[in-house]
């Protein structure tokens, strides 16, 4: 697990340090820097893979942009020469400094510094003085990875980082109306290939129990399965996929009660999507979902996040970073469990992003005992992470 993550000089993140848990929820105003945080980890993931360019960043869900715009550039502050990232697990750490040459036809970032350590030794070290010996566009740690035993803590950290993906589901992708170009497994970064992933889950040994949990969240559905398109009553005007998520509407008469992903409530699809990322064995071990509560009724968002935490914590190795906007979604987060952490994200008076963990201390508990929900505390501005609008 990534226990600590520090980023310096990336977009609005002049210097941000995070102590992460297994489930990490970030709330804050639009434009406060939540997505920047998720993307910073994506850049480090690309670096861990050995190359940082548009293609490797997009594969991880990082929004493509001019490299020059990635560097922190506040007024009255010196433009950062390099962007620095560091992630640490319990026994290893990976530290990278990246820079970009301004030539417009130069798509690849260069490594300025790089350091990979495990608990006993430094495995990789490079400094600007190493430029003559090493290809500055190639990650040295990624090259060294082949020499490391898979049980080595540094190897595991690098694999976790390079596997990190940012998922940003959209309804057209979840419905299969728009092709998801990403090659991500088990679902596309925008939610494509959902049916195949749901099929895997429902066919697993815990499939029946999971189906019950899903149906508790989608109360209008009596059943959910995955069917070939010829059994899913698809309109001829929709693209024909290999398989389709199919719901049985509990209120409709037999023969009229099957709804495909094209017809079903989008909330149900977001529920399936979250379940896949929490439980599918092919899901990245560390992943992010941007706007996890998108398109969900507040009560469904609350129930889903609560269930989602349970799913993630039921697996030994999964770690997620989530952004959310729906206050009610916070109310059933099991925050007294130290593995589940809530962070508020704010912009300071000069525009710098500030991230603060909301600690569940006697202060919060005293407010809760008075009947004040976390969502209310958030909206009231008592824990930060709200815009002044």
């Amino acid at each position, binding site marked *: 697990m990534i226990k600590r993550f520090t980023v310096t000089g990336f977009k609005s993140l*002049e*210097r941000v340090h995070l102590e992460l848990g297994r489930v990490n929820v970030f709330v804050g105003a639009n434009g406060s820097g939540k997505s920047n945080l998720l993307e910073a980890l994506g850049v480090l993931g690309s670096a861990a893979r050995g190359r940082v360019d548009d293609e490797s960043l997009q594969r991880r869900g990082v929004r493509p942009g001019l490299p020059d715009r990635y560097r922190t550039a506040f007024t009255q502050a010196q433009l950062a020469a390099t962007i620095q990232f560091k992630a640490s697990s319990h026994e290893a750490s990976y530290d990278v400094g990246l820079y970009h040459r301004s030539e417009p036809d130069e798509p690849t970032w260069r490594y300025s510094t790089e350091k990979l350590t495990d608990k006993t030794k430094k495995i990789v070290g490079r400094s600007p003085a190493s430029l003559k010996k090493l290809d500055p566009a190639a990650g040295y740690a990624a090259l060294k990875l082949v020499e490391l035993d898979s049980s080595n803590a540094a190897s595991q950290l690098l694999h976790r980082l390079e596997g990190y993906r940012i998922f940003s589901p959209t309804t057209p992708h979840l419905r299969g109306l728009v092709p998801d170009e990403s090659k991500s497994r088990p679902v596309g970064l925008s939610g494509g290939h959902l049916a195949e992933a749901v099929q895997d889950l429902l066919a697993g040994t815990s499939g029946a129990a999971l189906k019950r949990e899903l149906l508790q969240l989608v109360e209008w559905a009596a059943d959910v399965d995955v069917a070939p398109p010829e059994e899913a009553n698809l309109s001829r005007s929709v693209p024909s996929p290999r398989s389709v998520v199919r719901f049985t509407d509990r209120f409709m008469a037999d023969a009229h009660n099957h709804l495909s992903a094209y017809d079903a409530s989008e909330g149900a699809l977001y529920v399936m999507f979250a379940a896949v990322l929490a439980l599918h064995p092919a899901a990245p071990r560390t992943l992010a979902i941007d706007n996890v509560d998108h398109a969900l009724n507040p009560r469904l968002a609350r129930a889903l996040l609560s269930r989602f935490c349970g799913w993630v914590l039921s697996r030994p190795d999964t770690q997620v970073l989530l952004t959310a906007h729906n206050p009610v979604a916070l109310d059933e987060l099991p925050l007294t469990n130290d593995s589940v952490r809530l962070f508020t994200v*704010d*912009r*300071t*008076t*000069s525009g*710098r992003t*500030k991230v*603060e963990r909301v600690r569940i*201390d*006697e*202060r919060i508990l*005293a*407010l809760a005992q*008075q009947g*004040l929900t976390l969502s209310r505390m958030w*909206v*009231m*501005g*008592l824990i*930060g992470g*709200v815009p*002044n*609008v």
Partner: protein
Amino acid sequence: MSEAVDIRVVCEGPTDTLVIRSAVEALGVEAVVTQIQPENNSNLLGTLGEFGGGWKGVRAWCQSPFIREFLHVTLANARALVIHVDADIAHDKELSCAKPCPPARDTTDAVRAVVTGWLGAATVPPKVVLCVPAMATEAWVFCALFPEDKLTAGIECRKQPAALLVPRKPRLVAKKKDRYAKDTVAYEAARETLKAGWRTSVPRLCGEGARFLAELRAAIT
């Protein structure tokens, strides 16, 4: 970069928060400034948030049993809580605590005592900074934007300093029937001018501005 401090603001309206934020910026303090009252969302009856807006919203917030009991815990992670009301509320018949002006301070002192009483306290609680412009925040805004204007003389005793801003550019305030409508976008656009004003003309021309700035500095630096 030093760690940014958290400052919470309870005030009459959103443009007051912007003026207070400019004061924070003028002090050179990196901060997250969060307006917690009024909540800028209206209910079906047009009431802002749980407590309403304006000075009565500030009063309702301060007098809320919940806030009174838990003020110290809600402020645990904050460096300061700024509570703002305009001194002109002293003329409201519910309060009737206005004093002859000049000096403006007699009236602001009376209002400060009233606000302290709203909190159920005898003295200003720790971390709380009272912000009582005489007679309204727009006096400070006017002095920041038009420091050379002759109307800055005696401005702290003027009951409606917002009226001075109506005919002037930038258009921060418009007259709407019986009230003055303040344009948050225009206030935001004047941010640097307001900040510069807090460094020069506002404390020079407004004694209550100087007092607020000094108390804010003591609380957050």
